[in-house]
């Protein structure tokens, strides 16, 4: 199952990753290789199936509704690359439209 350059670029956009034009051909080849490799699971007939398996507990446990946040040794202001007046800052959305929320 090979992928085309266009598909790689489309996937990269979905994943918010810059792909530089120079590396695109190699990347496309590597992705094709990987996808061909993993596609071999298709060799197992679809009739073969087992009870769905997810490791871990069978059912989620609930937490009591109490205001007891997990500890933070220091606040967002110390973590953030840009912070002002109590807010995280990012460059203005150019390609987004605000939703007034």
């Amino acid at each position: 199952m090979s992928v085309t350059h266009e598909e790689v670029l489309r996937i990269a956009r979905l994943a918010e990753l810059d792909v530089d034009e120079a590396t695109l051909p190699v990347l496309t080849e590597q992705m094709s290789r990987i996808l061909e490799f993993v596609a071999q699971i298709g060799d197992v007939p679809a009739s073969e199936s087992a009870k769905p398996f997810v490791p871990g507990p069978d059912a989620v446990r609930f937490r009591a509704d109490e205001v007891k946040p997990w500890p933070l040794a220091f606040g967002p202001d110390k973590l953030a690359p840009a912070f002002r007046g109590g807010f995280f800052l990012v460059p203005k959305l150019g390609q987004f439209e605000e939703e007034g929320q």
Partner: protein
Amino acid sequence: MTAGGGWETVIGLETHVQLRTASKMFCGCSAAFGAAPNTNVCPVCLGLPGALPVPNEQALKLAVRAALALGCTLHPKSVFARKNYFYPDLPKGYQISQFEQPLATDGTLSYLSPDRGLTTATIVRLHVEEDAGKSLHDRFPKQTAIDLNRCGVPLIEIVTGPDFRSPQEARRYLQTLKQVLEYAGISDCDMEKGSLRVDANVSVRRAGAAALGTKTEVKNINSFAYVEKALSVERDRQIALLEGGGTVAQQTLLYDSKTSSVRPQRSKEESHDYRYFPDPDLPPLVLTEEFIAEQQAQLPELPAKKRERFMAQYALSVNDADVLTGDRAVADYYEAVVRAGADTKLAANWVINEVLGDAKTHQERLRVPAGALAQLIGLVRGGTLSQQAAKRVFAEVAERGGEPRNVAEALGVVQVADSGVVAGWVSEVLGAHPQEVMRYKSGETKLLPFFVGQVMKVSRGKADPKLAQKILEEKLAA
């Protein structure tokens, strides 16, 4: 304005409702509104490396109650799924929601359509998810400010089928939905505070057509009034487009309340491939029969049933019952007033007019205690206070408290219903107006109100007007 011209409007609504919990959906931070920005945060809702979600029991209880209140089929096993997309106020780069296996499906909600009478909306699904943070675009120049306090607050998403045939219907459904959810204590449903948000899908088709037209999504509707306006605007836009020979493009539009128009949201490229998959950080949500039964037991009498009961039990008209059951607090208050001994009809009038009127200007508070109102109503019924006087006493009790009887005396508005005393005033008045007495006796019975007025004047408003009238009639007949 209706569609007319052979067009039918088809509207579906997606409502997001914040659940009334103390803490967030997946972490122990406070879910309260209004805190200083980025103060109700922790590793989980900040989306820090290594943090993991742990679901809030109360959120699930409220979600199940909401599903039951809406007559949904509850799925004892449901699955949390990740909805993946990038946005500044979504710290993990995904929202924990539900997709293929939601909590509940196939519910209904009856509401009074202005066009079609009592109608049923279908609830296609109800699922649990977490809220995102807030992006503020105008706070700093060239920057977007992000506040993650709201990130992780529990939400339920309620999706209807394409059930509504007019913007007015859609609004009425929403009001009914809000009422039911408030009754069940699920949420404040406050559109201004954002605890109820709605997105709409709108399409039009020729009346009688079987197929649905292309639908658009309308967002950024921030009040019940705007629901109606926004949907009307979009419907009209689509009709105009189609009548002009164009086609409706499937897109997302934002409502602008300032210009009363919709404009396309500049497309978030590929924004609709959310790549949902079951969240591997959360085992399946399994509800036991006991858990579900407990939530069912916690549901109060819902509005429609309460209205029916009020009509039957208190002999109220459908309109009066509707107003009294509009808000659960008001319904409970009315019943408390009746329980305290007030006449049901009088109580209804007082609550609907005075109490609710006062509440409107005082942050919706029911300022006069139920027992006090019952006493007040009793005083009017017994003739101790005139209606006017009672209103004065009401206002006083609302403002400064106190027992109505005492307040009435302090205000000096207690009516005299002692026939002897009133008879005295009547005699005084009759004595002072012999001409009018003669005119009355010769047939000008329309002078009766004049005499009553004089008795009121001479008694400085204290005479019970009905008693005065009765005694006047007796004396004048003699």
